[in-house]
């Protein structure tokens, strides 16, 4: 994780790009690098109790978009909780569906 304090804004972060503010170096960023934070979030989801590797996490403009399918509502809540912990101050849009565990209503006949 980046160690710089988050600027607390959900809308004016330079998502995945960064703004050079270092004195003459052109290397330092004012805000944590969202690209790396997304990568760390993915690692966190995989390594934790959820062992969740099925989420697609991508920067879309100033928003981080998360899509995937969670096994249960409990899992979805847990994922969103970890996302909030890992990406404070970042606008997140999550489209996490719940797995459908119903029996199929049709089959596919292969010729």
């Amino acid at each position, binding site marked *: 994780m980046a160690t710089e304090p988050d600027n607390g804004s959900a809308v004016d972060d330079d998502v995945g790009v960064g703004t050079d503010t270092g004195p003459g170096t052109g290397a330092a960023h004012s805000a944590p690098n969202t690209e790396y934070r997304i990568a760390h979030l993915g690692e966190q989801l995989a390594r934790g109790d959820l062992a969740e590797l*099925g989420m*697609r996490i991508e920067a879309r403009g100033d928003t981080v978009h998360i899509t995937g399918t969670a096994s249960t509502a409990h899992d979805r809540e847990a994922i969103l909780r970890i996302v909030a912990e890992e990406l404070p101050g970042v606008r997140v849009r999550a489209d996490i569906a719940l797995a459908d565990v119903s029996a199929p209503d049709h089959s596919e*006949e292969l010729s």
Partner: protein
Amino acid sequence: MIRVAAVGDIHLGPDSRGLLRPAFDTLPDHADLLLLAGDLTRHGIPEEAQVVADEVAGLPVPVIAVLGNHDHHSERPEDVTDVLRAAGVTVLEGEGTVVDVDGVRVGVAGTKGFGGGFAGRSGSEFGEPEMKAFVRHTRGLADGLRRALDGLAADGCAVRIALTHFSPVPDTLVGEPLEIYPFLGSYLLAEAMDESGADLAVHGHAHLGTEHGITSGGVRVRNVAQPVIRRAFAVYGLPVNGFHDSGTAGPATYGSRAHGSATDRPGTSGPATDRPATGGS
């Protein structure tokens, strides 16, 4: 017509106990056998495997499984396998099994499979030991699948199905980021299927992928990862074009173990390299 039910990537744990059983209880209405395409657990521990075992225990259709990368995560695939087998599940790795469906011998050959990429965009057994081991692992498992399919053919199976966790083709990965395709499957699996022949290939692993695909040799491929099929299981009807045999209905096993190879024993399939933390699982 042989009715094959299949699902992968159910990722069960203690908090999902009983989730799939109501749907599984309807299986006799839908299918002649149930295939489980790996990633049955989250961390690959016996406690999670017991949840899986309880979900399928006592079902009136044969249940045949391969393990996935999640089932290897705790490096206890033998323990996971033992728990599943105790519940009557046939767990395959480089082996085949025969199910008698109304006198028709239906063969299922299974391997976890592994990554490496697809023709023209794949890794090679070259360079660092880790890279060579990565590709060699896939090649060994694909060879086991080929031997198992050959064994089923020699045994006169009228229908043969290849069951894997990793994908044999890129078709069924559409929806996943292109960059991670090499971590989602390998053409070596498809090559084995095409060389030995199969009537259907079933896999999981790619949660964001696509259900339908085909190998270059014409084997139909179905990605049955639960997030892809969006139900407890999918059902495929396979015509019986070959010969019928009303012979023994008992379980028979073919493949690498039957052929004396020590490289592809169930549950000992090498490095537990996981896939990247994006996309499916």
